[in-house]
């Protein structure tokens, strides 16, 4: 049995192109933020069979995400998405909205559910309700500590996925911040969110992707991987949405090597070349979210805490 699973998020063929997937065991396809993201795998359903087959041929699992904020008018599409993911043999559907989970259940659970970052999994009881509705895996909310995540998994009797690297999801909306006109008519859509935009105020920096707010700093759990494995966590995500192919490729390679070493036991330390990679790709510095009970933008540790201290 494999010691761990490393997942990359990839929104579209454009993001997939040039991304070295060799470090990853699984890919989560699509963007949950906006249906209008160009080529969004969760929207362009015709592309799902081909990419799922391709990933399977590479020996990787293929998950498909779903919209995080589906309004009533989006539900027919969600129904078709569930059917398409199941028909293509996707290994799971990532779900953020309880209505989508219910649709999956009503359809007889044709594909396992993974509860995503916006599903608000805070307690083992909530995880249990979702498990009973078809979830086999949950991603505890970003605000949940490692200790709580362990309880959720153990007492909720469901696998837990942890974000180990990348922007922390902080908020989701259905109104695009980057547009000045309705999205159907604004010429900036759908390109605006593919460019890099930050929100800066006082000592805070956030990243805006239009319908999502992400952390400015990059979550980095590199120096804590042995602890995660010791605590029994086995499923780890590198958040690759709205990042470059180099980011997904190089950060993934670092985590593959680091996790393999941590899983083998013995001495573990953050290699300088690993630190170089994560620092180079973290334009606004590093943090490790809420895992240790702090504010999300802080970094707890002894190795990488000095990155961009001014942010």
């Amino acid at each position, binding site marked *: 049995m494999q010691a761990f699973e490393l997942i990359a998020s990839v929104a579209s063929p454009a993001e997939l192109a040039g991304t070295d997937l060799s470090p990853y065991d699984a890919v989560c396809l699509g963007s949950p933020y906006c249906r209008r993201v160009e080529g969004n795998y969760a929207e362009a359903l015709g592309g799902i069979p081909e990419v799922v087959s391709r990933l399977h041929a590479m020996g990787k699992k293929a998950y498909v995400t779903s919209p995080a*904020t589906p309004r009533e008018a989006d539900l027919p599409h969600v129904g078709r998405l569930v059917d398409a993911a199941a028909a293509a043999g996707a290994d799971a559907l990532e779900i953020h909205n309880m*209505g989508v989970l219910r649709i999956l259940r009503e359809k007889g659970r044709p594909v396992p559910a993974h509860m995503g970052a*916006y599903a608000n999994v805070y307690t083992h*009881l909530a995880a249990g309700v979702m498990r009973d509705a078809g979830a086999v895996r949950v991603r505890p909310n970003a*605000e949940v500590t490692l200790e709580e995540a362990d309880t959720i998994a153990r007492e909720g009797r469901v696998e837990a996925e942890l974000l180990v690297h990348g922007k922390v999801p902080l908020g989701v909306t259905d109104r695009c911040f980057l547009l000045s006109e309705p999205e159907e008519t604004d010429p900036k859509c759908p390109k605006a969110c593919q460019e890099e935009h930050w929100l*800066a105020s006082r000592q*805070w920096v956030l990243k805006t992707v239009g319908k999502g707010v992400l952390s400015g700093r990059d979550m980095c759990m590199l120096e804590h991987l042995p602890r995660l494995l010791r605590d029994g966590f086995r499923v780890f995500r590198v958040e690759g949405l709205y990042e470059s192919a180099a980011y997904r490729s190089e950060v993934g390679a670092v985590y593959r090597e680091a996790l393999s070493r941590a899983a083998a036991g013995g001495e573990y330390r953050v290699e300088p070349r690993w630190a170089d990679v994560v620092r180079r790709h973290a334009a606004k510095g590093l943090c490790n979210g809420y895992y240790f009970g702090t504010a999300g933008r802080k970094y707890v540790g002894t190795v990488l805490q000095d990155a961009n201290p001014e942010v």
Partner: protein
Amino acid sequence: MAELLASGGSMEMVRAAFENGADAVYVGAKGWSRRRAQYEMDDPQIVEAARYARSVGKILRVAFNTLPASAEVPLFLAKTDALYAEGVRDFILTDPGLMMALKNRHPDTILHASVGCTIINVQDALFYKEAGASQIVAECRMGMETMRKIKEEAGVGLEVLVHATTCYTLLGRCTMSSYTKHEHRVDAEGKDHFLGSPNRGGLCYRVCLTDWDQVGADGEVEAAGLTLPNTAFFLADDIPGLIDLGVDTIKIQGREYSVALVGEMVRFYRELIDACVRDRASFRIEPWKERMARIVAERDAERREKTAGLIDESLADGRQ
């Protein structure tokens, strides 16, 4: 007729809300609702408020609508057991697991799915109904068509906020505040107040309302002094439509406002709803607008002051 539900941030506010015409008042259990502790009540105060509500033939609803830690579930059950023993039956919750646990323990409790559930479609409403809720709060930007569909298809009560805020992000799906500052403060009962997390402890530092610069990849400022849209609304035009739709509860949020202002707001909505129901055919909203504008101005002044204080509070820890 739709129930008018008002906020009770203190015993004084509970009384003022009922005296001004509320049919029901919600209060927050200390450490367990989507406001900070100063606007919540401890158990003896809740019991007192519930007794008062019963004495005037009205309803008191108790909010346990934060998302706690798993380790706090036994405390939640003990507290709700104690309130149940004192005759409290109406609760507002967010976590579907807590809903099921409470409903299984006390099948005659009446559970409302909080605004924190972010219910945006009919399937969401059905999910929370199956978790034990008999009424759901519509997400603040939900359109009338979806409300109509929920009424027709979900078989669950519908609650609509007429005075609240529409955050930039969907309410209940935002952790921007705790990203900037987050503290764990455990009270004597063992409840963590998760300061800085509106979802977990009720205190939001409203950092979305500070001035933000939008900066591009090259560091160039693309737009300066932006605020992320977070608007306090005060709906009046929609009231006739909501009544026609048959919504079950019209809710006024605002535990953090002054008792006098909450009293004014409740009186305004009470009279407006009564006038509309009394003579729907000839009801016109225009005569109400001037009075409404005065209340909104008062509300905005109180809100501005509080927002500035909250952002300063968040900055107090800014360099750590």
